[in-house]
């Protein structure tokens, strides 16, 4: 028989105001196995823990139930306290009488009754608890960062600086992400490339960092401390050890009509190309969809031009398998497609552009060499209309319900840069709200209005129509309560941003979760913002939610610290609550293997002694290091052989019985 102590926490008034804690304490004493009960103001406080420890020692408790907040908050606290005085930590159970009870009920009598029932269930479980010992597993001292935007680069640099190896896998031919496309950056207006490229170069040069550009992670198996990833290195058709990045081939290539991704399709590039001058790695890559050689077998000019003999039309994708202790997702974002927003005429009119396209039109390395020209007739626009919140904060199927967060600031940036460079240009900004929380952000936006004379109009644009070579913009000015009509030369749409289209696939591959908008979900929205709910998987940058560069970099470094904290350990403690199959009950049916999402179950032939009968049987075997304790197999097992330690079928049934009693 167990000797169980029950401790009921008031949680100040959080619990005590709705649950009669004294009654729960009295009721506990009537439960089988319970030898002690007490209520206390704050069980998690030092004196609360001391009360628990002293009682364990004095009464020789073999089990403890704490009726308090969610086990997610303090299970670890109480288990540690129990362990410090010699009790196995898995002999401690939490009855959640706060989130599951006091917070959601108003009636004291009802809440007290429920608290008693929850306490009873926990006591019933502890009566069947057994001491569990957690195993240890080794930590592979290398991290994988998926995505090489500013988030991925910063995370990798910080991990490498701490002395650990880190690989960056970037799907594009170069690292840099969206920041590499930007012109100047708010709130200080420093040139994006000037602050980004040194970091790109640092990453490439760092002895601890390996960059797999033009590569994708195809498969991940394993668990925290010991993941195995399969990386597909896509064929560049250029030998990266030989190519010097001289770019001669790109000049000679006769196929020059492929849309230039780096310039947001505003101009074209050759079939063999280097994304931009500061690309890292600076290597040519052939786009087989545009290459004449791949289409007709002819041409071959680049091969002839290349002195380094780097061109290799027969190159194949390469699969690389690497082991990692931790994985960081930094897959970033894209601006949404605007084809469904016909009211703004984006698809129909070349002079209606996105803000990201404007970045390229203002950038010295862009298609116009930094001179702002209309895409249609290459003239200077004299009147420019900016439209904010395009596709953000809406509820139509083409809209995103959230605020994209960065658009108010970059629109203020764009309007100021234009007024600075072209003072004779009139700039109008249609806004619903201007949202500029952040250090020096409001001041930045006010400068656009007060110093640069940008016309901010509260209202949205309802229609953009071509009219004699201009764009007739119908908007509303809600403060004047008027419809306004502006004949503009250029219309710039602040399009909503969304997670990269690979986010869902990546989340599934890493068995971590995404929200309804496909942003990866953090383990706790306030207290664990850079960890995912899956151990060993961390989040960095916009893949977790919209943010600007300062916030991205802060989060990237935070993720790095978490990774370093993990890699610094030689071994990590495994979860002892893993599955185990009973040899005498298992019939080797494979039902469990099919449902295990972690591939933890295999089969082996083994001789068993079934009540004196000796025979060789095919039996399920759980790899304890891989099992995550999800319990799927225990439900699937038709013969009741599979059981989860710490949550055995018997324990669960005892809890149910206790509740129904």
């Amino acid at each position, binding site marked *: 028989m167990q000797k169980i102590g029950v401790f009921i926490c008031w949680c100040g008034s959080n619990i005590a105001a709705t649950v009669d804690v004294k009654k729960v304490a009295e009721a506990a004493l009537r439960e089988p196995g319970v030898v002690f009960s007490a209520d206390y103001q704050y069980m998690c406080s030092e004196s609360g823990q001391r009360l628990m420890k002293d009682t364990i020692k004095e009464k020789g408790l073999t089990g403890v139930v704490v009726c308090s907040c969610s086990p997610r908050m303090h299970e670890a606290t109480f288990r540690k306290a129990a362990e410090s005085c010699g009790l196995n930590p898995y002999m401690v159970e939490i009855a959640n009488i706060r989130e599951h009870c006091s917070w959601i009920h108003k009636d004291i009598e009802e809440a007290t009754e429920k608290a008693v029932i929850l306490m009873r269930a926990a006591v019933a479980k502890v009566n069947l608890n057994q001491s569990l010992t957690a195993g240890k597993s080794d930590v592979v001292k290398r991290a994988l960062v998926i995505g090489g935007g500013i988030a991925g680069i910063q995370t990798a640099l910080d991990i490498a600086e701490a002395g650990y190896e880190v690989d960056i896998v970037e799907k594009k031919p170069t690292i840099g992400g969206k920041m590499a496309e930007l012109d100047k950056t708010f709130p200080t207006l420093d040139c994006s490339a000037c602050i980004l490229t040194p970091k790109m170069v640092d990453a490439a040069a760092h002895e601890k960092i390996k960059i797999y550009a033009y590569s994708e992670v195809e498969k991940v198996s394993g668990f925290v401390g010991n993941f195995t990833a399969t990386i597909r290195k896509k064929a560049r058709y250029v030998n990266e050890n030989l190519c010097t990045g001289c770019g001669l081939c790109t000049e000679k290539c006769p196929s020059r009509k492929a849309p230039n991704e780096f310039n947001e399709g505003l101009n074209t590039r050759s079939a063999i190309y280097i994304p931009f001058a500061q690309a890292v790695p600076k290597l040519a890559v052939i786009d087989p969809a545009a290459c004449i050689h791949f289409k007709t077998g002819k041409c071959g000019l680049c091969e002839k031009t290349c002195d380094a003999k780097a061109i290799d039309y027969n190159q194949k994708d390469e699969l690389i398998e690497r082991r990692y202790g931790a994985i960081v997702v930094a897959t970033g974002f894209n601006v949404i497609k605007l084809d469904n927003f016909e*009211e703004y005429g984006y698809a129909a009119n070349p002079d209606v552009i996105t803000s990201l396209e404007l970045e390229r039109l203002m950038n010295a390395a862009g298609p116009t060499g930094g001179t702002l020209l209309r895409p249609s007739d290459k003239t200077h626009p004299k009147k420019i209309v900016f439209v904010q*919140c395009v596709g953000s*904060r*809406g*509820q*139509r199927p083409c*809209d995103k319900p959230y605020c994209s967060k960065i658009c108010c600031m970059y629109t203020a940036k764009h309007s100021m840069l234009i007024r600075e460079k072209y003072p004779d240009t009139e700039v109008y900004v249609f806004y*619903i709200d201007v949202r500029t929380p952040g250090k020096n952000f409001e001041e930045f936006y006010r400068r656009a209005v007060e110093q640069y004379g940008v016309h901010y109009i*509260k*209202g*949205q*644009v*309802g*229609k953009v129509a071509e009219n004699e070579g201009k764009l007739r913009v*119908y*908007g*509303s*000015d*809600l403060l004047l*309560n008027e*419809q306004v009509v502006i004949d503009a030369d250029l219309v710039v749409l602040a399009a909503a941003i969304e997670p990269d289209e690979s986010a869902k696939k990546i989340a599934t591959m890493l068995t971590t979760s995404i929200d309804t908008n496909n942003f990866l979900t953090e383990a706790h929205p306030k207290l664990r913002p850079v960890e995912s709910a899956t151990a060993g998987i961390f989040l960095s940058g916009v893949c977790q939610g919209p943010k600007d560069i300062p916030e991205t970099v802060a989060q990237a470094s935070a993720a790095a610290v978490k990774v370093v904290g993990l890699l610094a350990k030689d071994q990590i403690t495994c979860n002892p609550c893993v599955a185990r199959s009973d040899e005498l009950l298992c019939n080797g049916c494979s039902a469990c293997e099919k449902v295990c999402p972690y591939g933890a179950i295999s089969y082996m032939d083994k001789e068993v002694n079934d009540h004196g009968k000796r025979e060789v049987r095919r039996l399920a075997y759980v790899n304890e290091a891989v099992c995550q304790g999800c319990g799927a197999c225990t439900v699937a097992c038709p013969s009741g052989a599979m059981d989860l330690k710490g949550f055995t079928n018997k324990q669960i049934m005892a809890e149910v019985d206790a509740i129904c009693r």
Partner: protein
Amino acid sequence: MTDLQKQIENIKRISGANPEKCMRCGKCTAACPNYSEMEYHPHQFVYFIENGQLDRLLKSDSAFRCMTCFACVERCPRDVKPAKLIEAVRLTLIRRKDSNYLKPDEIPQKIDEDLPQQAIVSAFRKYTK
């Protein structure tokens, strides 16, 4: 509940629209092709109904000026459906108690050969209390 509040509830019910969803972007008014003909604009219909100022709308002829082109409904990012609210205001005006829009003595002048008799009967029913 006052009469006005009842009328507002009624308008919300028959329109099936929820003015509380409006985020005051003004896109409906920006898109309205009949802007210059209307004293009050679609975003104002939404705002006035939300804020209990229906009487202003009832005193104006704006509801009858709306062409029911549904541009505002189509463009609204929050799916508020301003034109449906306007339609409901129109119905409220038409169905108002004790207001005879069509008097029996006016009917003889309205009759002409092409007008189906049915139309007169139904108009009489609809616009007369």
